């Protein structure tokens, strides 16, 4: 494991070494972090392409069944990455650059600092400035595993299972435009990304395996329903594509608001 961590650190230092040299490069690299359209728009487009591009009804039905399983898997992927993130505390690379102590064998020991090159523009620059003032969300200190890696890798892989052409584009965009900038800007280490992607793939594959038994009585009828009710299915697809661009943020916010309402009504 030490070798993997060392490799991850080496790769992080190599990639983060690109940051902080050019305002233009940092701005371009930061775009997918700052802008949901740039981040997830192409993935949503690939999803919609795969949804509609079957050569005949049988292929369209098969593709939609694969995409429906993918959509369901995203909820489990987020739950898995969040649960593991709660259990394992691994600071973000840009947090690792500050003076800190960690618990080791019952003692607090000073954590070796990780070199960090700050981007000259973008969201991460603002975050590092907030960190220097201590104005950072407690949930934002740690980064293992990357939920973006889990979510988008599962989504792109699911698209790949439905349509090789669209999936290849989605996987390439996920790697180059969504995940790589997260390492360059110090949001995540390569290990965070690898673990997130592994979780995303594992959950998707497990759900695809489990869905085999439900293909005849659930998936195929559901895919058939989307063919019979194209307009309504397209409207629902809009919601999915929109929320995918935000990594289920709005759904999670809604769940939080629901909890607040329950607490308020319960008077706690």
């Amino acid at each position, binding site marked *: 494991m030490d070798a993997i961590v060392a490799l991850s650190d080496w790769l992080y230092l190599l990639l983060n070494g690109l940051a902080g040299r050019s305002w233009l490069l940092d701005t371009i690299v930061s775009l997918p972090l700052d802008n949901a359209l740039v981040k997830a728009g192409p993935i949503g487009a690939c999803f919609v392409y795969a949804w509609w591009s079957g050569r005949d009804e049988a292929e369209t039905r098969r593709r939609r069944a694969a995409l429906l399983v993918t959509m369901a898997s995203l909820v489990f992927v987020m739950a898995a990455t969040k649960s593991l993130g709660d259990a394992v505390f691994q600071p973000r690379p840009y947090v690792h650059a*500050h003076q800190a102590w960690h618990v080791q064998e019952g003692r607090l020991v000073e954590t070796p600092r990780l070199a960090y090159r700050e981007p000259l523009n973008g969201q991460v620059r603002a975050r590092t400035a907030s960190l220097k003032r201590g104005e950072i969300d407690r949930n934002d200190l*740690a980064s293992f595993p990357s939920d973006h890696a889990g979510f988008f890798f599962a989504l792109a892989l699911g698209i790949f299972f439905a349509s090789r052409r669209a999936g290849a584009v989605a996987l390439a965009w996920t790697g180059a435009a969504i995940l790589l900038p997260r390492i360059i800007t110090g949001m995540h280490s390569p290990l965070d990304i690898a673990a997130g992607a592994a979780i995303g793939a594992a959950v998707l594959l497990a759900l695809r395996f489990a869905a085999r038994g439900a293909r005849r009585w659930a998936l195929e009828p559901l895919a058939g329903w989307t063919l019979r009710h194209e307009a309504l299915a397209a409207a629902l697809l809009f919601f999915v594509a929109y929320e995918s661009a935000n990594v289920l943020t709005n759904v999670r916010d809604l769940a939080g608001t629901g909890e607040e309402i329950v607490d308020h009504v319960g008077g706690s």
Partner: protein
Amino acid sequence: MSAGAEALRRLTPMLFALALAGCGKLDQEAMVLTVEPGWTAELVASEKDGFGSPDGLLWADGTLYVADEGGSAVRAWRPGTRPAILADARAGLASPEDLVRDSAGNTYFTDDTRGGLWRTDRSGVTAALVEPGRGLPSTEGLGLSPGGDLIVGDAPGHRILKASPDGSLSVLIGPEKRISKPESFAFDGAGNLYIADNRDNLLYLLTTDGRLRRIVADRKGFSPETLHFAGGTLFITDSDNGKLYRYTPDEGLNVIALFGGSLANVQGIAADDEGSLYLSVQSHLEGRKGYILKLSRKVSPSP
């Protein structure tokens, strides 16, 4: 399935297992990150040293007094020794919350499960000074006024009460002032009272002329848990956000340190005679796990 997809299918479980296997090695459990330069942090005690899950802290005469909420006890601890029990469940304690000590050596504490106001006298006898049945079903913050009165936070009643050492009660701030949960108190050197409301995330100041005003409000990421005034500075822990703040009227609110992982639930605070800060952390209240940390200012080497 294509060869590439098949290879991915085979590789993924291995990567997943590797990620999980690596977690033990990766997991730093927790961290303290100092935002303000010049501080060092150390872990001075944990449940392994005889504490449960500590909450309120008080430093007096070289001893740290601990309201051990998870351990249902009030303990006295001199660093380097095992903690002594001042009072525990046998005296009726359930979840001791906050504590103060008067000049005569009596220790007073609140209990947010049992309620009431409790006293352990110099001879070690513990009894309720104000029974929970007298309108105090759950008590939170506790302060000792310069005049020797006890200031008690009544969360269910949204009130702050004043109790004299003989147990008589009066209302200092009633529910009409809308202090939702008076979690902690601290007097400054001039006798003004700082009040933490950690439900509405507000810091109040009650001045000696009786005026009550909000001095920190609508601040994102601020929920005051415990207040401690020392050396002209108000120190504030924030268990919701894992932060330690300092506040002065001139400089306002500034973050000293951030706490993450199992150290994030930072609760009580007390300063020793050298100005070092002791902090209690509840990592798992029901599991009776927690830490006591010490933050000290680095001493600059002599030129």
